[in-house]
Structures are given as structure tokens and as C-alpha cells.
């Protein structure tokens, strides 16, 4: 089955599947990206698919921004979710200008 997925920014390493995707499905990115990749996991609708091979500790990019880091390797075409991505634990005081630069 051919599944559509939305990639938002050219920097993104994940896209969001518009339907349930299964192992062996072809996943096509919507305009303007148009790339097609092979799905290697079961991915529920509205969940993310890895667009590249991701190593444990790699930053995950969506919206062109880091949304968290991978806790385990995720192959290209694999399911990216709360089970294998964690957000950063941050403190406001460390986010002030001096530290931010």
C-alpha cells in the first residue's frame, strides 16, 4: 500500500504518516519533497517515520528543530515515538541569553 507522509522542513529527519503504515509499505512524502521510502515497522496514523538511519543519542528533527533525542537506534523507515525519543530536561535559567549563545 502507498502511504502519504508529511515532511515539514527540509532539515527534518522524520515525517508524519497520514495513515497506518505496515512493514513493506511504500511511504511517499508530500509536496515539495516527494521522496519514497520503505516502511520497516508498524506505524499508526499521525505517528512519525524515520527518514534516515538514526543512532542512539541522535537529535530528532521536526519543524526544522530538535524535538528530542533517540534512546535507541532507529532504522530509516522505522517508527519514531515516545517509546524511543526523549525530550531534553531543561532549566529556564540556563536558557537565558548568555548561556544560549
Amino acid at each position, binding site marked *: 500500500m502507498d502511504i*502519504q507522509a508529511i515532511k515539514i522542513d527540509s532539515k527534518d529527519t522524520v515525517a508524519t504518516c497520514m495513515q497506518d503504515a505496515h512493514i513493506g509499505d511504500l511511504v511517499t512524502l508530500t509536496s*515539495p519533497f516527494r521522496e519514497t521510502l520503505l516502511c520497516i515497522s508498524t506505524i499508526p496514523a*499521525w505517528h512519525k517515520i524515520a527518514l534516515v538511519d538514526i543512532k542512539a543519542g541522535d537529535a*530528532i528533527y521536526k519543524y526544522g528543530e530538535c524535538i528530542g533525542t533517540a534512546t535507541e537506534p532507529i532504522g530509516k523507515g522505522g517508527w*519514531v515515538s515516545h517509546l524511543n525519543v526523549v525530550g531534553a530536561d531543561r532549566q529556564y535559567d540556563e536558557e537565558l*541569553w548568555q548561556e*544560549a549563545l
Partner: protein
Amino acid sequence: MQFLGYKRSEGRSGVRNLVLVLPTCGCASETARIVANQVQGTVNVIINTGCADVEANTELTQRILTGFALNPNVFAVVIIGLGCETVGHTELRQKIQKETSKPVVSFGIQEEGGTLKTAAKAVSAARELVAQASMQQRIPCDVSELLVGLECGGSDATSGLAANPALGLCCDRLIDEGASTMLSETIEFIGAEHILARRAANKEVHDQIIGICKAYEEHLASAGQSCRAGQPTPGNKEGGLSTLEEKSLGCIKKGGSRPIVEVLQEAVRPTKQGSIIMDTPGYDIASITSMVAGGCQLVAFTTGRGTPTGIALAPVLKITGNRETYRHMLDNMDTDVSGIIGGEYSLEDGANRIYDDILSVCNGKLTKAEAFGFSDVCIDHVCRFV
């Protein structure tokens, strides 16, 4: 780019030409409604404050009432007061008149001797003002005069993927053409505030963005409410959101990518042009109230599940990326960008659709909420009533 608007003697041009019947407090709101009901071309607001408040709440109410009167969509103001509220009609009128030369008249219910006697005078004044307003023609105005408020509510999975990023691209285009936009809902920045802060035009703005998030989180903590615990919610995770960064980014992406030039307190008018932030709650109606008091002539509102809300002073354009919602709630939805989700067109195409609709509405096309005459107002509160 230009739109057809109403020139004002000072400040930005209006996209509507309204006579506002403005109560000073909750007790004058219903009399104000009766006045507005008698005169086509007027709008009224119902407010829940103006009395029995701590100073901080009084200050916010005053900023909102004054801000409503100064909004460019308002041609003239008819103030209805009671007589024993914190700030009476004469004082409010004088405050407004210090900042604008638009016509402002005021009446007090206790002074006049009740609702009917007040209404008799106020209706007659409002009719005169509407007649004056009706003589004014729309003329071409530069898009740099536009200040567009941004809001999202009733979000679903399509909000962060289609409507918000498309609105963000639309904002970039508006700002590049010289217009200004106002992002609000501080509570929804939390988790991605460091990413938002990176868009700051300078150090001061950067630290203000972090500062308003910290202050909001502390404020809610003082009432026992945590902003981060349990975020994203189990429902969010099931819906495909993995981290709070991802959830908050989906919201702030509607503000686009241009440098943020100013961070405003709630209901304060900007002093700069470009991408602006106002520190408001995530509660849609309160946030829209404050942005319109801050001078927004139009609010672009993204939604997934659909919402009817509207404010009488400014068009609220409903944008959805959910095709089912657009069809199912056609009475309330204005702009359909579901083709992004369907893969029929790109985010850029969706942004252009929003841009075109914003321009049409500025030129006079009524939004769904305006056609119904919706007038939702909520004045934010920092403390219980006294």
C-alpha cells in the same frame, strides 16, 4: 500589497468601521447590549470585571477597555457606566480621549436614572455616530498597517501539521511585506520556549521570552497546577506526539520564522513592527480579547476540531487542516487547508490560501463568526474577586 481599509486620524487603519458600545463594568454590560440592539452598525461587548478587583486586575481591565476603544476597527465609542464601579465612565472617557481624537461619548446609569433613560440618550448618540461612520469610504491602505493576531484552539493532529505551519509561512510573507503579527498563549510555548527564544531579534527579547514562560509556570504552580507533569499527555502520545518540545512547536509554528522584535504584557499595544509576542493565557477567548485590545484588526485562528468563537470588534478567521471538520462545521469554518494533509498541495500553497482569505476579510468579506454577530470577550484575571 494593499488592502481597502478605513483611515483613522492616528495609528493604523481599520478593516471594519464600528461604533462600539462599551460598558465600564459587568453591571453596565446588559444596558450596553440593549443600546447596541437598537442601532444597526454598533457592536457591544459583555464584560465580567470592572468592580471588586485587586489593583492588578483593575489595571488589566482598564488596558482592555481602553484598548478596545483605540482598536483601529472602531470609529467611535459610546461608553455606558454604572456610577459606583472602580473606574467610572467619565474617567474612562477622558483616558481614551487622551490617546485618540475619535468620537467618544459616555453615560452613567445611576446618574441618568436607570436603564431606559440611559438607553434613550445613548441610542440617540449611537445613531448619530453610526450615521457619521457610514459616510466613511474604504481606501487603499498599505499592508504594513495590518496587525494580525494568531490563535489556535480545539487543536487536533492536523493543527500542528497543516494549519499552524501554513499560517506560519503566511506570517513570514505578511512580515516580509511590512505587516505585523502577534503570537500569544504563553502557556503553549512552554517546552519549546528555548526554540522560540532563538528567534529573538536581540538579547532583551530573548530573555523576555524565557522570562514570561518562567513567570507563567510559577504563577500556575502557586495555584497547585503543574505545566510539565504528565506532558505530553497519554492522549498526545497516542496521537503521535513524543515530547513536549514537539507539542509546543506545533503551536508556535503558526508564528512563522521571522525575528521576534517585541514581547508585550497582556493587552498592551506594540511599539514595533514585525513579529510580536503578547504574554496571554492559552484560553482562546481571553487571549483574543487581549490581542484585540492590543490593536489587532484581525485574528487568524487555526483549529482542528472546530470552534465558533468570534469577537465583535475584529474578524476572527477560522482555518482548519481537517477536511471532515471543515465540512461538518461549515457554519463556523472559513478557510480549508486540508489539501496539505491530503497531499493535494504544499504547505506553501496552504499559506497562500490563508493569505488570500486574510486579504479578502480585510477588504470587507465577513467571517462566519461576524455573520452570526458573535461577541465573545473574556478578561484574564490574576486574582480572585475582592
